[in-house]
């Protein structure tokens, strides 16, 4: 299952899309997000199953473009 990874490096910044991981479940997705996107000591990081993302804008789409 593909999960999108979001993170922020500072509390006063918005969450930003940093990439995606392929994982069997939520717990593994957490490990992989941590291991793959470790370029920052993020203050917050989270993963969202790609299937849970609902596009809103007209050209909204998944995967999330333009990380």
């Amino acid at each position, binding site marked *: 299952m593909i999960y999108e990874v979001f993170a922020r490096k500072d509390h006063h910044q918005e969450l930003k899309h940093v*990439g995606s991981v392929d994982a069997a479940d939520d717990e593994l997705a957490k490990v992989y997000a941590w291991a793959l996107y470790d370029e920052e000591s993020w203050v917050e990081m989270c993963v969202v199953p790609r299937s849970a993302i609902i596009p809103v804008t007209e050209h909204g*789409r998944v995967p999330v473009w333009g990380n």
Partner: protein
Amino acid sequence: MTAVKDLTADQAERALIEKIQAGFTVESEEDMTPGYKKALLTQLTVQGDTELMSGPAYYLAARDAPTINSRIAVIAIVHDELGHANIAYRLMEDLGVDKRWLIYGREPHEFKHPYGFDQPLENWAEMVVANGFFDRAGICLLSDVHENTSYGPLRRALVKVDREEILHLRHGESWMRRLAKAGGEAREALQRAVDWMFPMTLEWFGLPDHLKRHSDQLVYRLKGKTNDQLRQTWMAATVPLCESIGIKVPAHYDAAKGEYVIDYPFPCQYDPEAKRWLFDEPITWDQVFERWKARGPMNQRYVEMIQGKADGLFGGRRW
């Protein structure tokens, strides 16, 4: 390779090329033409495969690292490289290519990494020269892509890559200085490594500009510099480094020409068993491509390491 003429004959291709040359950033598949997508996928495949294949090459050297600090440093480098491979494959996956197939489904000869990563790194000197030379080549190529690429998602993803590659380079160069300074066997091993790895990296940048009339990647602004320009950038960093530590390289700066000049017939024959360049046997680029296509001595083993056993989960590993 598609000729520029062919591309510009197609109206849609021509329109996209004009837009891109005027500064347009491609953000999604809908912005792409078939020609653009194909050129981008080729570039990402080479990028991903190069990073991926450096993993086993570096790891087998890290496994015998002389100290715990140096072991940690190279394992961290392997970690970065695999992460970078994942970035390229992820971008391809978003364009409809199966990432698992890219990694686990292809035959060893189907990977599109440079010949340099089909070679064994047999001692610590070769490991650190790989960091100093190969990773420097990687930085030359990728920072050019980073600065120039018309593909937005790639440009953003490369921020992480660029930064981490600098650490690899620093690791390589500081060890090269240490080995040179240590003298004796360590220094001799360093010189031997440079002797085969310097020409190996020069060849890596590919066909000289005067033999190459066009490049899809330049037309679509997937990169900015030509092969010869990139080769010059690489030599401008590595030749002075080697000279400053008293290590000989077969190239020098020609002040009159204002550029670096290679001191042997380029390209020439290579003996992978002896790891020796035969400077008295010049060859054509077609012969180089043939050698590349036949792959080097470690191709099969490195791919087997990465893929483990085909059925994945439980088999013993062949490597």
